[in-house]
C-alpha cells in the first residue's frame, strides 16, 4: 500500500453556476446570504458537480492519462491534483512533491527579462535559489532562447515565452508531474524534446498524469488511461482499449451519411452517401491494415455537367488532413449520363496505423476549383493495424517500404 502516490477518495467538487460570488451589488450578496440560512440542497440548479464520488489510486512511477470530452471534469481533477483547489467532499492525498505543467508561464511577468522570469517562475514552483542557479543554463538551452535571455518577455514571440515556461517547469524535478496539453507547445523538434523529457522522467520512476486531446500521445506515453465522463470515471485500464472505447463513443461510427442538402442547391452533382467497406465488404466494421478496403461514394447527377471530379480526404480524429485523393489523379472519369452513380476509391492495401479516421468527400468541377458539394467528416472508420503503443511506428501512415544497408539484414 505504500507505493500509492495519489489517492482520490470519494472526491466530489461542486461549483456555483453563477461564477463564484461576483454579485453586482452588496444588496444581492445580502440576499444570497439570507437565502443560505435555509440550506440549499446539493442538487439545486445553482450548483454544478464537476466531479462526483471519484475514487482513484495511482501508484508511484505510474504514468496515467486522463481523457474525456470538454466539461468531463479533467481540469477540475487537475486542479485538485496540483493542489490549486480542494474537493468539496471526499479526500485527496498525494505523497511527494507535485509539479504541474498547466498553462506554463502563468507566473511570467511581462516587464521582466527572461532571466528574471526564470528565477521568479522557479521560485513559484517551489525551487530554491541555489536550485534555479544550478539548472539555469540547462533551462535556457532547453528553451533555445540563449540570445534573448536578457530581453523583457513582452518582446518575445508567444512561442518563445511558452518554451521558456515549459523549460522551467520541466526542470522542477517533482515526484509527481501533472501535464496538461503542453505537448502541443512549439515546433516539432521542441515537441520531440518535451517527449524525451517525459520519457526521461518515466525512467526515473516519477509519477506522471497526462491530460491531452491527442490520443496518440496518450497511447504512447501512458500505462493506464482513465476516462472521465460527466464528473465520474467511466472506464479505466489499458490505454488502447479505453481510447478506442472513448473514440467510438464521442465519434459514433456513422458509416454513411444520409442525403442532405447540397452545398450549392443548383449544383449539377450532389453526394448522396459515403460508406467504408472492409475486405469482407462489411460497412461499420474495422478495416484491416494490409488488406483491401474501399470508400464508396454514391452521387446524384441533377443537371448537365462535364467531367466532374470527386475528392476524398482522410483525416485523423482531431480533424487534421492526412491526405486527399481525387478521381482526376487516377485518371478516372465519372459516369454522369445516369441520375445516380457510384465511385469507389479502393485502397489495396490499407496502410493506416491502428486508430480512428474520418473521411470528407467533395464533388468538384472539372478544374477542381469549385465545390459543387462537400460533406465534412461524412464517414468514420477504425483501423486494425500496427499500434502506436508499441512505439515501433508513429503517425498515421505506414508507407510501403523496406530497409537496406551494408551488412544489415532482416531478423
Amino acid at each position, binding site marked *: 500500500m505504500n507505493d500509492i502516490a495519489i489517492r482520490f477518495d470519494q472526491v466530489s467538487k461542486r*461549483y456555483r453556476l453563477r*461564477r*463564484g*460570488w*461576483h*454579485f453586482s451589488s*452588496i444588496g444581492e*450578496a445580502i440576499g444570497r446570504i439570507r437565502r443560505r440560512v435555509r440550506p440549499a440542497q446539493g442538487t439545486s440548479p445553482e450548483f454544478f458537480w464537476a466531479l462526483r464520488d471519484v475514487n482513484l489510486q495511482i501508484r508511484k512511477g505510474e504514468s496515467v492519462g486522463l481523457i474525456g470530452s470538454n466539461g468531463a471534469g479533467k481540469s477540475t481533477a487537475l*486542479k485538485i491534483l*496540483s*493542489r*490549486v*483547489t*480542494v474537493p468539496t467532499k471526499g479526500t485527496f492525498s498525494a505523497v511527494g512533491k*507535485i509539479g*504541474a505543467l*498547466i*498553462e506554463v508561464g*502563468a*507566473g511570467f*511577468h511581462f*516587464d*521582466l527579462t527572461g532571466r*528574471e522570469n526564470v*528565477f*521568479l517562475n522557479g*521560485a*513559484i*514552483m*517551489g*525551487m*530554491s*535559489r541555489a536550485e534555479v542557479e544550478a539548472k539555469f543554463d540547462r533551462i535556457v538551452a532547453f528553451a533555445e532562447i540563449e540570445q534573448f535571455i536578457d530581453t*523583457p518577455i513582452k518582446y518575445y514571440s508567444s512561442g518563445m515565452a511558452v518554451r521558456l515556461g515549459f523549460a522551467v517547469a520541466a526542470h522542477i524535478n517533482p515526484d509527481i508531474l501533472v501535464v496538461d496539453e503542453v505537448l502541443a507547445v512549439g515546433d516539432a523538434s521542441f515537441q520531440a524534446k518535451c517527449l524525451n523529457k517525459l520519457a526521461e522522467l518515466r525512467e526515473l520512476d516519477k509519477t506522471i498524469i497526462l491530460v491531452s486531446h491527442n490520443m496518440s500521445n496518450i497511447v504512447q506515453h501512458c500505462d493506464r488511461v482513465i476516462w472521465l465522463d460527466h464528473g465520474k470515471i467511466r472506464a479505466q485500464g489499458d490505454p488502447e482499449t479505453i481510447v478506442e472505447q472513448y473514440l467510438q463513443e464521442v465519434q459514433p461510427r456513422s458509416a454513411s451519411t444520409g442525403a442532405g442538402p447540397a452545398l450549392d442547391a443548383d449544383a449539377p452533382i450532389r453526394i448522396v452517401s459515403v460508406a467504408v467497406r472492409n475486405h469482407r465488404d462489411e460497412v461499420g466494421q474495422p478495416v484491416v491494415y494490409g488488406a483491401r478496403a474501399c470508400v464508396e461514394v454514391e452521387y446524384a447527377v441533377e443537371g448537365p455537367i462535364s467531367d466532374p471530379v470527386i475528392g476524398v480526404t482522410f483525416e485523423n480524429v482531431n480533424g487534421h488532413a492526412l491526405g486527399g485523393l481525387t478521381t482526376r489523379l487516377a485518371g478516372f472519369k465519372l459516369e454522369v449520363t445516369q441520375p445516380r452513380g457510384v465511385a469507389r476509391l479502393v485502397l489495396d492495401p490499407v496502410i493506416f496505423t491502428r486508430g480512428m479516421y474520418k473521411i470528407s468527400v467533395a464533388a468538384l468541377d472539372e478544374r477542381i476549383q469549385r465545390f459543387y458539394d462537400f460533406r465534412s467528416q461524412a464517414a468514420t472508420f477504425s483501423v486494425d493495424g500496427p499500434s502506436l503503443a508499441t512505439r515501433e511506428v508513429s503517425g498515421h501512415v505506414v508507407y510501403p517500404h523496406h530497409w537496406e544497408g551494408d551488412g544489415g539484414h532482416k531478423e
Partner: protein
Amino acid sequence: MNPIRELVQYSYLILSFARRDIRARYKQTALGAAWAVLQPLSLMIVFTLVFDKVARIPTDGTPYPLFSFSALIFWSFFSTSMSQGTFAMTSNSNLVRKIYFPRETLLLAVMLSASLDLAIACAMLGVLLVLYGSTISWTVLWVPLLLGLQVLFTLALICFTSAVHVYFRDIGHALSLGLQLWMFATPVAYPMSVVPQSVRSWYLLNPMAPIIDGYRRAILYGQPPDLPRLGIVLLFVTALLFLTYFGFKRAERTFADVI
C-alpha cells in the same frame, strides 16, 4: 504541512515576488525610485500649505514640514501596503488560478516591497532632519519596534481584505475612501494634543493613532511612545492576526474557484 515551516521553505518565493513587484514598478519610469519619495513629499507640501499656513496647527515648536513628513512616510507605508495587499490575490489571479503556493507569500511580498519605499523615504527624512538642524535622541530606537507592530497590524488587515476582495470587489472601492478618512482620524497632519480630551478615549481605539504618534515622539521629541497604550494595541493586533490569518488560510483553499 505546518504553515510556519512551509513559510520558511517559501521564503525565497517571498523575496522573488517582492523583487518582481519592485522591478516591475519602476521599469519604464524615468524617475524610478524617486517616486517612493515624491508621494509623501508632495503631501507634505500640500499639508504645509493647508495646515500650517492656513489652519495654523500647533506643532510644539517643530517646523511643520518636518512634523508632517515624519508621520507621512509611515502612513504612506501603511496605505501602500494596505492597497497593494488588498489587491494582492486578484492582481495575481493568473497565478492563483493555476499554481499552488501558500497565498500569504503574496501578502508578505507586498510588505517587503513597500518597505523598500519606506527605507528610501526614511533616508529622505534623515536629510530633512539634518537640514532643520534637529538632534536625534536614543529614543529613535523605538522606531523598529513601532514598525514591527505596524507591520503585524497591516498583515492582520490585509489577510482579511485580500481574501474578501476575491469574493467582493466592493472592498477595493471602499478601501481608497476608507484610507483617506482613516488618515484624518490619525495624528498625521496634526498633533494628538489638538484632539479634545472628551473624545480622546474613542480616538485612541484607532491602533494607528498611538503608533503614528509614537514615531513622532521617538524621532522628533526624544520621548518614548505611549507604552501602556501600545501594549493594548499589541494584544489586540496579535489576536486579530491569529483570527484573520487562519480565516485567510481557510478561504485560500478555494480562491482558485472564485477569483
